[in-house]
């Protein structure tokens, strides 16, 4: 059984292999400043040039990269346009009008009654075929959308439905992943993470049968991004 003896034995062996003296219970930890600093003040390593564009170009790159990985993107002028865009997309794709949305004021509080959609908010269940969720940020570098779990964003909404519609605000599109970590530290406090923080780069896929790529393995078959121009 795993216990403190195993912990001490493993750490002891690591220290021995690294040529460090054994750590006794009463000796103070010998963590070098280099390690403590790195953990306290995380620094970005190398950021690719493509992630360091002016904001307008970042948005173009985000759209290009997301499209390359089989997501679809539509730009709308304001949050009020979201319900109509969702209705249009579902009609175009001939998808069900029953939609499960995140219980997030920015989504569930929209004027859905102007559409013919059947809207409910909460976690996703086996019968939910379409979801609409907010996002935390998006990254131009690889067309990646970042979503986080929380009371207003049940995690199952990202994975269970066959079609995931995610709302991205243009002001939240950044160049690189490192920018997102900076924003997350700002909103959560250093070292804090939500239970789950997910990077979504295109819909679910698999190449496990004869190396032929198929979309919609266990997660969504379609990822539709509604990009709200709020800048």
């Amino acid at each position, binding site marked *: 059984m795993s216990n403190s003896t195993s912990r001490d034995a493993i750490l002891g062996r690591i*220290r021995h292999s690294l040529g460090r003296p054994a750590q006794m219970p009463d000796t103070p930890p010998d963590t070098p400043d280099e*390690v403590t600093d790195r953990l306290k003040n995380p620094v970005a390593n190398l950021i690719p040039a493509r992630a360091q564009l002016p904001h307008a170009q970042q948005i173009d790159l985000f759209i290009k990269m997301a499209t390359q990985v089989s997501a679809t993107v539509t730009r709308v002028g304001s949050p009020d346009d979201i319900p109509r865009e969702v209705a249009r997309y579902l009609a175009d794709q001939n998808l069900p009008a029953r939609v499960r949305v995140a219980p997030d004021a920015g989504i569930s509080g929209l004027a859905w009654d102007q559409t013919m959609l059947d809207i409910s908010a909460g976690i996703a269940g086996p019968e939910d075929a379409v979801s609409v969720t907010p996002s935390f940020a998006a990254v131009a570098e690889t067309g990646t959308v970042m979503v986080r779990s929380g009371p207003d964003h049940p995690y199952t909404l990202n994975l269970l439905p066959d079609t995931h519609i995610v709302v991205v605000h243009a002001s939240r599109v950044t160049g690189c992943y490192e920018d997102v970590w900076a924003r997350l530290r700002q909103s959560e406090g250093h070292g804090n993470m939500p*239970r789950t923080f997910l990077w979504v780069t295109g819909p679910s896929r698999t190449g496990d049968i004869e190396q032929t790529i198929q979309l919609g393995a266990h997660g969504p078959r379609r990822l539709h991004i509604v990009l709200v121009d709020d800048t």
Partner: protein
Amino acid sequence: MHRALPVAIRKGNNAMHVSTSPKFRENAHDALLDQSLQRALGRLKTGFKDKRSAAIAALPEFEALRDKAVEIKNHTLENLDHYLTAFEANVKANGGHVHWCKDSEEACQTILKICRDKDAKSVLKGKSMISEEIGLNAFLEKQDLQVVETDLGEYIIQLRHEPPSHIIAPAIHVHKEQVADSFRATHKGRDPNRVLDEPRDLLDEAREVMREHFFAADIGITGANFLIAETGTSVIVTNEGNGDLTQTLSRVHIAVASLEKVVPTLEDASTILRVLARSATGQEMSSYTTFSTGPRRAEDLDGPQEYHVVLLDNGRSNMLGTDFQDMLRCIRCAACMNHCPVYGAVGGHAYGWVYPGPMGSVLTPSLIGINQSGHLPNASTFCGKCEEVCPMRIPLPKMMRHWREREFEKHLGASSVRYGLKGWAFMASRPRLYRAATGLAARLLRILGGGRGALRSLPFAGGWTQIRDLPVPEGKTFKQLWEEQQKNKSRQDGGPK
């Protein structure tokens, strides 16, 4: 074709996979004659290699990112005790548990205890090579727990009672007709005349079947591509989304990870992520990269109620400070096997244990002992391609030579291997002669190969290479090409400075 598969897996009655690595020669011989396997291996090029080249060509900073990734891992390994304790403290601060396990047995027992404490009947699994390493499925099944693999490839080989033959494409050796047979035999109560001809039909059926499992699971076990010390987070990288559903819909999420998966910060993980998917599948980023920290928060509407990290040593702490420390940088991208002429000829099962290809030839002897894996370090043409493509710049050929030297010292090798090695050592210590001889050999092989592009036999190579086609060296040796390139470069730069 009856390749010798690890026996314990086939019978499902032993915690640790029994290695057939000592039989590499026999396994390889059988694999070369297995037409169906050869057809499957033919797909490596378009499936992985071409895509990798394209992804790398699209990112000018790729080489510099590799250097950074190496630097991060080296720094972490030099401070492994500090980063692991920081990771542990942060998991605990977020309400999770860390279980330190010395070996496979302890890890399996720890996981079993968590299952028993929760009165669990069913265990769902996301893809995890560590769980293969510790023989977890067989162990849990023996304890009457139902274990279901959720990754499509893992699910297929689970139904076929086989070990994975590739670390990221476990069912790469299986054809769609064989998948259809397994599905018909397993998924009862469905129309026996249903169409299962195409990958899409098969995927749709698997998806449906898996949904039922997802909603019934007690325990969800995933691996971890990274552990982040700064936040106490485990990270999985997947394309299917199965790992996410596994860990979200279960009451308990257990992440099984080996010690060396830890990195200091979110930024450090991000740097390595930039080289991981590109090296593995040639994607710029995998579909899902999931950062999991602790159990669900009090206000959350879904997510697991408990979060455990099973931290496995299994011999790795002994690799630190040795010739094999660099191997602990490995991020399991599989680029080395995708590009290895030996793997490409014999596939993964011939290697006889969990980890195939060049990384397996180095890692397997470290983990289960050279006696159990005798011939693996010889499963190489020393073409150097593995090191060239390894994003973590692991000197795989050098390490295989280390093992060969150790094997040689122990007189485990057959006499032909020993003499070959002696010859090599003689040449290697005389660089000019070595260069001339390898250059000569390349020219000679090209002539022997004629227009066919492959050779049936290679003088001096002996053993299993006698029956396989060696790729004809493409003209010059790497060294010759490199030297020429350097000359051209200095010409362009206006001569040597």
